[in-house]
């Protein structure tokens, strides 16, 4: 039976205009809410039409299948934002993580400037996906308002710090990494990174160039000369990051800034470690996007490559070229092989267009 606690006398009463216990008027919104709740209870949900779970025939009730318990698919599991032929972003949950903690934002201003932000939520923290989402949104807002990358980082850090956190015995405060670029139509590029998202420049000859330096344990070992790059990469601590956004970040931390002149046919790639772990060298990145016809295809190729290689982490890539009107395919010599990540499925990229007619003419 539909019941309601009367706000006047705190007694339970049946739904109606008046409280049965004290006779006072019952507020219409309380009655409405109670009716909705009861209808919802009958239908097994919050009043909404339950969504069928095709795998088992059950229905999703507040996000979970009422029969097999599966989680209702999250739109964040796979996101694509294809702004134009020269600016696109793709993000995927991957195969081994239960949620997508990466976040990106991209935008092109009216005067043709391309902006991209990638933040990777730190898994060992509370609500990393909230930290990364808020940070990426805040950074883009600052950039679009004319702020520089330092200001964008500051805003991203503030946003991550603002995510609610109740001290947890095992998990740290909400944290994410930061990376962003500003690419002007004239090819002037500024990149800022803090953490282990990376920026690459892919040239028309099919070679790649690294634009960023990781804030990671492995990088610190290499810089200190205690290990070779290879040894450091193989170490269990390799992927531990040394800088991040969030309430336990340090005020003095600033993103590493790099400026570069991007050629008309160069491609800028900004990606999370879930992508570059499967294409660690700049030339590997170049190989993966070889033959793609626009930014969207290139971003998708990078994420698909990570998924085919095992998809062990969330994978996010933003791809940009200086001008939205620039010619299409990045140019590289034929015959470059796609690096095989360990454990990769064979022919992982047969779905990628490699039409020779798209090969460069010079």
């Amino acid at each position, binding site marked *: 039976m539909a019941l309601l606690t009367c706000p006047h006398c705190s007694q339970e009463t049946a739904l109606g205009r008046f409280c049965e216990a004290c006779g006072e008027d019952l507020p219409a919104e309380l009655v409405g809410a109670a009716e909705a709740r009861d209808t919802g209870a009958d239908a097994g949900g919050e009043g909404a039409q339950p969504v069928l779970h095709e795998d088992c025939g059950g229905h999703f009730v507040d996000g979970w299948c009422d029969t097999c318990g599966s989680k209702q698919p999250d739109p964040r599991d796979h996101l694509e934002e294809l702004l134009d032929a020269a600016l696109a972003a793709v993000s995927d949950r991957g195969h081994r993580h239960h949620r997508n903690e990466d976040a990106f934002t991209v935008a092109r201003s009216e005067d043709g400037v391309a902006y991209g932000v990638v933040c990777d939520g730190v898994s060992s923290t509370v609500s990393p996906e909230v930290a990364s989402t808020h940070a990426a949104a805040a950074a883009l807002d600052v950039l679009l308002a004319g702020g520089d990358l330092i200001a964008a980082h500051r805003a991203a850090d503030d946003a991550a710090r603002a995510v609610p956190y109740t001290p947890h015995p*095992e998990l740290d405060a909400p944290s994410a990494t930061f990376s962003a670029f500003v690419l002007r139509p004239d090819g002037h590029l500024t990149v800022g990174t803090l953490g282990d998202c990376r920026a690459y420049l892919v040239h028309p000859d099919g070679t790649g160039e690294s634009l960023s330096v990781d804030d990671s344990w492995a990088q610190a070992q290499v810089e200190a000369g205690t290990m070779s790059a290879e040894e450091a990469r193989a170490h269990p601590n390799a992927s531990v990051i040394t800088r991040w956004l969030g309430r336990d970040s340090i005020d003095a931390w600033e993103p590493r800034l790099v400026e570069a002149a991007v050629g008309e046919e160069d491609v800028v790639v900004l990606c999370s470690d879930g992508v570059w772990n499967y294409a660690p060298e700049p030339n590997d990145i170049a190989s993966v996007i070889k033959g793609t016809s626009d930014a969207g295809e290139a971003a998708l190729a990078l994420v698909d490559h990570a998924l085919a290689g095992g998809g062990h982490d969330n994978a996010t890539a933003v791809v940009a070229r200086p001008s939205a009107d620039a010619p299409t395919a990045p140019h590289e010599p034929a015959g470059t092989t796609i690096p095989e990540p360990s454990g990769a499925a064979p022919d992982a990229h047969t779905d990628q267009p490699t039409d020779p007619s798209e090969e460069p003419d010079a």
Partner: protein
Amino acid sequence: MSFTATVHQNEYVPEGSGEVHAIVTVEAGADVQAAAAMERNLILICDTSGSMSNPMSKIMAARQAMAAAVNEIPDGVRFALIAGDHEAEVIFPTNGHDPLPADATTRAAAAGLALQLEPSGGTAISTWLAAARELFQGHEGMNLAYLLTDGKNESEPESNLVEELVRCSGLFQCDTRGVGDAWVVEELRRISHALLGEVDIVREPEAMAEDFQAFLKRALGKAVANVSLNVWAPVGSTIKFVKQVAPNIEDLSDRGADAGKLTTAFPTGAWSGGESRDYHVCVTVPAGAVGEEKLAARVRLNVDGEDVSNGLVRAIWTDDTALTTRIDPQVAHYTGQAELAQAIQEGLAARKAGDEATATVKLGKAVKLAHESGNDGTVRLLKKVVEVEDPNTGTVRLKKNVEKLDEMELDTRSTRTVRVSAKGS
């Protein structure tokens, strides 16, 4: 009415496994109040077997305690009194039928009859419960009983009690009290367990009145009856156990009843406003793939057929051992409290059987667990039974001369737990 559920768990499950543990804290808000129209029925059952006259002070205290309790029953609450020996006698109402609403007249009549209780005969507790069952029959609402005895259930075969408990189950809730040291802890624990009540010891007859009063106060504070903890688990899963773990340990697993829609209902007994209980739920769900996330259980408190709180227990499969090997502090704490109760009961049983070596090990383990978890009440009771050399390692010696009352008190209260304290690691 506001109830809340808070879930504590490590939701990360290793590849190939499907066992999920969670502690669910259910709290009734202060606004949880009894509906004005709810009928309350209260039955006090007092042992009047021959042993109650040995010494005479025992029956005298029982009479006084019962009369005093009757005088405290508020107007309108229906009540009855049962005197029990090898058979039961409904001493109030005098016609032996339905409990009567309390008022000045009925209270005075009942108190007068309580003061005339005469001990004689043996002890057949099933007959007492059967009498209570007949009185409660046909009365819906809050049916609560209080059963006080000083001895062993020796005048009937054990099966009588077992069968009567099945008949009573679900009709009323019953607290049990043992007075003195001649009763059997396990016997009263079984009755309380089956009838969703609590067992406790009343060391001296003089303490009966106070205990009666305390019971009455708690009974009158109960706001909602017909409450169950409903556990939904997905297709193909098994509910391994459902235990209440605070304020005391009570394994509810054998009480589960199919409530349809993949849900099992575990009766919890009545709740008061502001009350808080913790439950340890363990389910085994079909193992998922790495990266998959599933709902392993919904733990809902259900009052009169309506779900009033919803706790979600999740499972996320990962190959990251740093995540899967973490034990939730609440789960660890209550797993320890359950081990503590078991160690005490096994230690006392070993001592009774003359196995001092096992008793020393078990009680030593109990001291260590109680000390570590900050369960000071249990540490204090343990210290009456063993000499503690080092609580950190659980090094103890059995005391040579232990009062039987102390052992029984330790046994009875072995299931009392504490919540996670700053001291607990």
